[in-house]
């Protein structure tokens, strides 16, 4: 089980992957909005999404888990 975490504090603007989707390493999986900028979040490794603990519009802190993948 690997995780994809938030790189910085901000608003979780768009979640681009749902449970069951496959992700590739380097693929954009979510977009944060922080400091008025769009901050793409990329997957470090490939896998299948098992869990998406945060909802769009929620505040996320640096290091918060956005996806659990396997």
């Amino acid at each position, binding site marked *: 089980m690997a995780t994809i975490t938030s*790189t*910085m*504090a901000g608003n979780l603007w768009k979640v681009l992957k749902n449970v069951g989707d496959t992700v590739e390493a380097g693929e954009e999986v979510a977009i944060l909005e*922080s*400091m*008025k*900028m*769009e*901050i*793409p979040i990329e997957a470090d490794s490939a896998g299948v999404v098992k869990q998406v603990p945060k909802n769009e519009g929620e505040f996320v*802190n*640096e290091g918060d888990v956005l996806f659990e993948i396997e």
Partner: protein
Amino acid sequence: MVKTKKDHLAIQQTVEEGGATKYHESNRAKGKKFVRDRLADLLDDGSITFEDGKFANNLAEGLPADGVVTGMGTIHGESVCFMANDSTVKAGSWGARTVEKIIRIQETAERLNTPMLYLVDSAGARITDQIDMFPGRRGAGRIFHNQIRLSGQIPQICLLFGPSAAGGAYIPAFCDFVIMVDQNASMYLGSPRMAEMVIGEKVSLEEMGGAKMHCSVSGCGDYLAQDEDEAILAARQYMRYMPKNCHEKPAMVDYTLPAEQDVQSLLPNNQNAPFDMRVMIKRIADEDSLFEVKERFAPELLTAFITIEGRVVGVVANQPKVKGGVLFHDSADKAARFMTICDAYNIPLLFLADVPGFMIGTHVERAGIIRHGAKMLSAMSSATVPRISVIVRKAYGAGLYAMSGPAFEPDCTLAFPEAQIAVMGPEAAVNAVYANKIAELPEDERQAFVQEKRKEYQENIDVYRLASEMIIDEIIKPNELRNELIRRFKQYENKKVSLPNKKRSVTPV
């Protein structure tokens, strides 16, 4: 006993073979080369010009050269001094003569004003020799004292092939540039075994002091090499961008034009959308001249050497692709360090600003973003090399200041036609100024009001307004930037700045 010539050759051969065969074999299994082979790879023509202290400790059993090779050679035709640990001899540990040899080659480097390279692969102090090598005037502390004295006078580069443990970890810490070989190189004050004994922590060496960790988390490493060959190549590349010492400028190098030069098409219409600044740098730099420092550490800011028409330039650039290009404590720290190196060795600086400001929030305040930001401003402001600042799309808040803003005496501030400079971006500014007004308005009128105010604000921070007020010196089309930089850096070459009459600054850290 008087030795014959035959004895001499035999002794010399023994010394040059290093430690026992089994240690050579175990090193080879880890992808580690013998110290003399490393030096042959690093130096021009595969050869050491001369070596000092080869017979150090030759009367002792099993301590050839006392575990370190010191001497001189050339890189790109220029003289360098080196010290190189031999990890086949007592794991490269330091005895009294090891330390004395290192100190002497440093003193040679100082007298000759030549760069000093440290090829480190050492388990640390030889405990059995501690009284002779640790506490005294010419003990190991003197190596670091010399490094500090030499810092800024001559380039000091560390190639870390194995461990640099405990006190030994300060050799890389005092070098300008640290290359670490993945899996083999490590830096730590106390080994994992010691950490478990003393503080009860269970941790692997890789996690606590490995090359990847230091190059991406702690910032102690500048370049992560996949193997020793890449490490040596990186050291030779780095030397291309450096002068011999602080009294000279880097040599002009051969160059080819960038294959792709279109900068305009890289810039998104939406100010808040990310783009890849690394690609933009490649399109204004000479082909294949980009050499990044700390690529994996604080990647929201890029620090790199490039050449522009053969001239070495240090680039500090926000990377909107990572964390929106926002400045953090680590990115400020990274920038400060890089600018100090460039200023020390007469390398002009190019700032490519695309920055929404410094990060805010509890996390970064607790991490000391204010003092780290101050460190960046201090290093930038006191750099007397030519400085050109380019506002690519935006420079908001203290981000403008940190990227060599107009108040900090850059040689010029250039801007692309779409650029904006302000205390904060339009969205935040309208909220800050009109929060009460917006709240009072009926809900269906709010949107229109906000839009109108944002538009007004945007016009006020427009680049032509700023140029009219002479805040920026010139508006440049993105595709003309390279040629503008070539012309300006050439003219700024003879810049002279007089320093204030004082001993030193009390710099933020």
